[in-house]
């Protein structure tokens, strides 16, 4: 099996290194020196696993060899360029998107007619350098068919990922899981970006009337109403996901907060924007999710 991982952030790096233990992996990076370092040093994993994988890497998409499975693991801002770089090529490949939010598959679909697989991942890592990623949370990646991709193809990818040492679960319908994570991310990432709080116990506190947990709960409830109107039965209750995550001990640094702290564009469009647009599509009032979406957008506007 030949794999191509597009985007070598922490999630892309974790996939690339693990898959390289059971397949040939080529990584498409944004920067030339990142590709050179991977080719020369390999990709080191520490934390829950400890090994160094041999991968090939390229910064120019024209240098990519043929592959059977493409994994797009860029941030929202890199998605359009990633899809563009694969356009018109690799007709035998299946492409899997592992992005936050909703709508990544549509962006890729506009660039080609590959069979697509939707995925959401709950694993997490921290990149210490271009060639070193720490594997932190070994929670699973969930994947499911997009449009008429055969489920057997999804199960093959599930087996490949599991053989590579990561957790994965194929689902006939990913939307329940995707929406659970969407509501969770829209709420937790949005609130974190606006308050500057890491995902800590404040997000679950509901004692005093000004405690943040009330707002988090109300945002989740709005999200559930949107899901219901969209005909999606959630896989997990996002409020319980929130409470559980705040009890892990070390507070997660949500990527949207990380982006705001470094005054970078965030993934707010693909996450909060997508949820608010779904609310509009199904005629559901979502004043609080809309407020969080507008406030994060405005925060981005304040950079300049």
């Amino acid at each position, binding site marked *: 099996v030949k794999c191509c991982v597009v985007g070598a952030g922490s999630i892309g790096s974790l996939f690339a290194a693990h898959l390289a233990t059971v397949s040939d992996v080529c990584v498409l990076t944004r920067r030339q020196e990142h590709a050179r370092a991977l080719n020369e040093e390999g990709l080191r994993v520490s934390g829950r696993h400890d090994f160094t994988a041999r991968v090939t890497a390229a910064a120019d998409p024209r240098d990519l060899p043929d592959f059977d499975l493409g994994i797009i693991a860029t941030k929202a801002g890199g998605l359009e360029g990633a899809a563009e770089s694969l356009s018109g090529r690799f007709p035998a490949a299946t492409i899997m998107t592992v992005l936050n939010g909703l709508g990544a598959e549509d962006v890729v679909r506009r660039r080609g007619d590959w069979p697509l697989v939707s995925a959401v991942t709950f694993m997490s890592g921290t990149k210490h350098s271009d060639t070193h990623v720490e594997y932190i949370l070994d929670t699973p990646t969930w994947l499911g068919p997009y449009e008429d991709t055969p489920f057997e193809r999804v199960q093959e990818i599930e087996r490949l990922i599991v053989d590579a040492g990561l957790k994965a679960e194929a689902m006939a319908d990913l939307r329940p899981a995707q929406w659970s994570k969407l509501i969770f991310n829209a709420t937790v990432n949005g*609130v974190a970006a*606006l*308050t*500057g*709080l890491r995902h800590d116990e*404040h997000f679950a506190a509901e004692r005093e*009337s*000004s*405690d*943040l947990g*009330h*707002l988090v709960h*109300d945002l989740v409830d709005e999200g559930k109403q949107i899901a219901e109107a969209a005909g999606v039965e959630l896989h997990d209750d996002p409020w319980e996901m929130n409470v559980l995550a705040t009890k892990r001990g070390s507070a997660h640094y949500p990527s949207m907060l990380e982006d705001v702290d470094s005054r970078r564009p965030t993934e707010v469009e693909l996450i909060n924007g997508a949820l608010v647009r779904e609310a509009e599509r199904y005629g559901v009032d979502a*004043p*609080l999710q*809309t*407020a*969080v979406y*507008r*406030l994060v*957008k*405005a*925060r981005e*506007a*304040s950079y300049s």
Partner: protein
Amino acid sequence: VRICVVGCGAVGSLFAANLAQLGDIEVWSYDLAQEHVDAINRDGLRLSGAGDIVGRPHATSDAKELPACDFGIVATKAMHTSSAIAATAAAFTDGCVATVQNGLGNEETIAEHAERVIRGTTFPAGKLLEPGHVQWDVKGDTTFGPFEARPAPVREIERLADACTRAGMPTNAVADARGPQWRKVIFNASTNPIGALTGLTHGRVCEDPALRRLVSGLVDEGKAVAAAQDIELDADPEDLIDHAARPEVAYDHKASMLQDVEAHRATEIDYLNGGIVRFGGEHGVGTPLNAAIWALVKGVERSW
């Protein structure tokens, strides 16, 4: 007539320095910042900007030095009302105490320590440049009226309003001061925290149509809570918001709450959006957006 300004920050200094211009008024200012007190006693209290004057009030940081006063004007930040009035109450045993503070609930707190209370709201603004020196940014009106639960006599309210007006701080004595107060509270609660959460100036908040709609959503909730108490606003807060957004008024103004957040100082959010939520709860009016904004800004404070 003896008047003591309790809390001699920017707004308190505007009252103290102007009132000290009058020959028939003896002005005291009570403030905990010893450097500021020493500078006032040594060089006088200087205002520059909208008016350039030097007043010579007596200043002290020791409440025991205060003589018996006819009037108190409380001008602390709202979170310091309780400790400030508790410390100075003995000076007002036979006098009346007015508030010119931001937010809701200051009169109730003052009434725990004073017999005759004056509800008040003021629009002039400035900032402390250095000890003994305040920049006077904006002139504006002040309104005084009886605090319903522990009212000061109408004649006394008129006497204080007359003194302020003669001193160059135009002040109206009215039968019901809640209208102007709620207009200002709604204005502040609907705009200041939006600036604080996004980092945008007042003008930029208003020119983003989606964000401006969020501001209107907050205004509408505030108006509904005022209406439920039979409070008639003296003007529409929306007009004040649009007026302030004009380039020659306050387009580039960073809300004081944004300045607080940037300096990691506690904000007055509990007395603004928190006050609207509290009064809404007491009168059966839902205030979900104000509750959300309250929780977000409390979250910001907790992130420090």
